């Protein structure tokens, strides 16, 4: 599904720098998906499949490095610049590997008036990264998230797929510690 972000992040190893060569099964999964699109019936409108293809590709690879973009671009007969223009526009897509643990602080208004900005600052301080960045060890990505609709629990933090409600600054350290333990 489009919003499936639970797949593991794939990072190419030094001896196989190309992600597609390093993960032939993932490559195959993406190619099969692209081949399943009714492109023949969409003359002149193939670009209409771009965003869903990128969703799928990101679900498979965890992010969208250039070699994945190239695969999509070739199949949809697009210039690579068009694909990159789209990826860099939408906040859902990223061409950089994301952290093992994704921490997203809800930046909805309800959370804001209940102190979400302080929570975000606290995560940034503890993890030593800014919003939108991934920690050097690849463990954490920190981001803002638009309203998740759990306003009664504000402020809310999404820790990977789980909602943490009523978060207060002292909880930040605990959340990070818990993730580290899970990671071991």
């Amino acid at each position, binding site marked *: 599904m489009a919003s499936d972000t639970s797949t593991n992040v794939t990072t190419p190893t030094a001896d196989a720098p190309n992600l597609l060569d390093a993960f032939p099964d993932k490559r195959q999964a993406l190619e099969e998906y692209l081949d399943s699109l009714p492109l023949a019936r969409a003359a002149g409108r193939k670009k209409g499949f771009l965003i869903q293809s990128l969703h799928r590709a990101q679900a498979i690879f965890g992010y969208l490095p250039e070699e994945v973009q190239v695969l999509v671009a070739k199949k949809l007969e697009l210039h690579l*610049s068009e694909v*990159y223009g789209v990826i*860099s526009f939408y906040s859902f897509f990223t061409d950089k590997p994301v952290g093992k643990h994704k921490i997203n602080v809800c930046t909805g208004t309800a959370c804001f008036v209940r102190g979400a900005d302080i929570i975000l600052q606290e995560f940034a301080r503890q993890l030593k990264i800014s919003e939108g960045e991934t920690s050097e060890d690849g463990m954490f990505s920190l981001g803002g998230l638009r309203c998740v609709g759990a306003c009664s629990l504000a402020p809310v933090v999404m820790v990977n797929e789980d909602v943490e409600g009523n978060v207060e600054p002292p909880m930040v350290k605990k959340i990070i510690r818990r993730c580290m333990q899970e990671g071991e």
Partner: protein
Amino acid sequence: MNNTFTQIHTVKFQQPLHADVETNHNPAFEVRFEADGEIPVPQVVIWLGSGEEQHVVQGEQIRKGINNTYVATVPANLIPIGDHMLQVQGCRKLDLATAIEPDWVKTSKPLNIDTPSLTTQQLLARRFGKGPVRPTEAKPIPAMVRVTVNGQQVVVEPETTILEVTRQLGIRIPTLCHFKLDSFNVEHRMGSCRVCVVEVEDRHNLLPACCTPVVDGMKIKTNSLRAINARRTMLDLILSDHPKECLTCEANQSCELQNLAHEFGLHKVLYEGEQSTYAIDLANEAIVRNLDKCIMCRRCETACNEIQTVGILSGVRRGFEAVVAPTGEKSLADTKCVFCGQCVAACPVGALSANNRTYDVWTALNNPRKKVIVQTAPAVRAAFHEAFDKPAGSCSTGKLVSALRNLGFDHVFDTDFAADLTIMEEATEFIARLNKNENLPILTSCCPGWVKFFEHQFPELMYMPSTAKSPQQMFGAIAKSYYANKIGVNPEDLVVVSVMPCLAKKYEASRSEFAPGGIRDVDIVISTRELASMCKEAGIMYDSLPESDFDNPLGESSGAGVIFAASGGVLEAALRSASEWLTGETLANVDFEAVRGLSGIREATVTIGDTQVKAAVASGLGNARRLLEKIKAGDASYHAIEIMACPGGCINGGGQPFIHGDTRILEKRRAAIYAEDAHKPIRKSHENEYIKKLYEEFLGEPGSEKAHQLLHTHFQKRDNL
């Protein structure tokens, strides 16, 4: 009134859809007409039935539009259903329009057009007798719209934008992102800079003039305080995110933003805050990208993606961070950019500019150990003088030569000479392929932008382009061999400078195959604009320059070499030589008019002896793509095709003085080129005496082994990403 034209239409009025059936009469409708000058007493006469009864529409029922257009309102219930005649005195062009019922004017036939000599009576006789009626089906004419601009009422065609209406009225609304190339049917109309906003009554926001079509009854104020303040604010905002280093900017004095800031009298920076900063892209020989200066007008995107279909530029990221860049925000050198420079020509500011090499030329000129020679491309002479505020088309090759000589070049040569040489090789190759009927069509390959384009995007057609080098590179190769030897200078100590209308030529000269043994055939390439700036730096006054001639032996050229500057010229030059060689007869007329022009794709069939040679010309890479796709699909076949990357050919190259969207300038450059050709004593490449001598003394004959070694090249497949 002398020379008045009378238009008479026979009009068949049908039962209108919702008309009052009892009266059998028509609803109100409009007659629109145009005249060459003002009509003192405009009137429309309607002759009913057989011509006995007439109604005259005049006075307040006729409104004057702009450019001597008039709209007469024929009131309702005046005309019964049937055939009638409609006469307008003093008009050149007449249209029937109906604002109310599109269906009821069934047919309208112009009875007579442009007949100044006939009297109305004579015309009537024709109408009811057997006059020479030229019937044409009337097209449905959309109702005209009435708009008020700054209190002045005008009648204009629907779908006209506010900008067009105001320009017709002589009001200039400032624009920045808007970009229109009339000759190429290109309009970049994003409405994104908001510098052209105007106030329209009953609309709660200001509207962008460039992309708002007028509607009936619209009341526009172009100069209200609200509109002017908003435009100033837009400029203030753009300036707040733009480096204030105009004095040292490549676009100084050609910058549209600088102009507007000056015109608006912006004397201080109103808003301060963060400015976008990017690394400057200097990694290629041709184009420099300094995105700090990008104002997000996106004109370069239209140039690259729509006109040229090269497709390397896109808006990237969003919000304040949005900018235009290639994929992955890479350097142009790492993309399929062909360096045509059309993006540079489209850029209103200094975000995209030529990789300026004038300092290298100064250094070489001042190096006593170096012999420095210069070649100047055919199109340079057509536009060089524009940089000195001379009107387009009023060029002088002699002054250009003097200017170069004044700069201190040891010898001033002409790329036109090498163009003649190119024809010798290319026409020979063409005849060989034609005789064997293989590898056809032959594609010209003197345009480096086009060469790189097919290397990336059409590698499967790589057998088609002629292997002959471009004139620039032929010149370099001959200079560093034949000429260096002749004057007894080591090739290392000979500096070949090119002045080109083109930025891709800078890239071409840097290709490794053009540096045998590590010595480049062409050392430095500067653009027409760079040459002009060197002349200004050197204090050369254009008006005082004498006319002088190129040096020999590499300065003599035929008219065929000259016309390389315009789209169609290479093909025409090749045809001049090829037909004489094929038939052995002298051409009666060397002007192949069919292949000339600014249009994107032209086709012609030329009879050479017994052969019908099918030729095509494309300029602008988007047009080239369309032509090649047709060939690939088997929908077209030709023997020879000329392709130039820039729309209109080299006269519109990315290194030429900026035309700022005024394509009339290109027409003038083109005319100047063909005039120079017409005045040349020799107009065919193979008749150039110095070319003949070159083959005799050095190369042998066209297509010889030596010629291949020095004058031919090869292509390579490149990534198409």
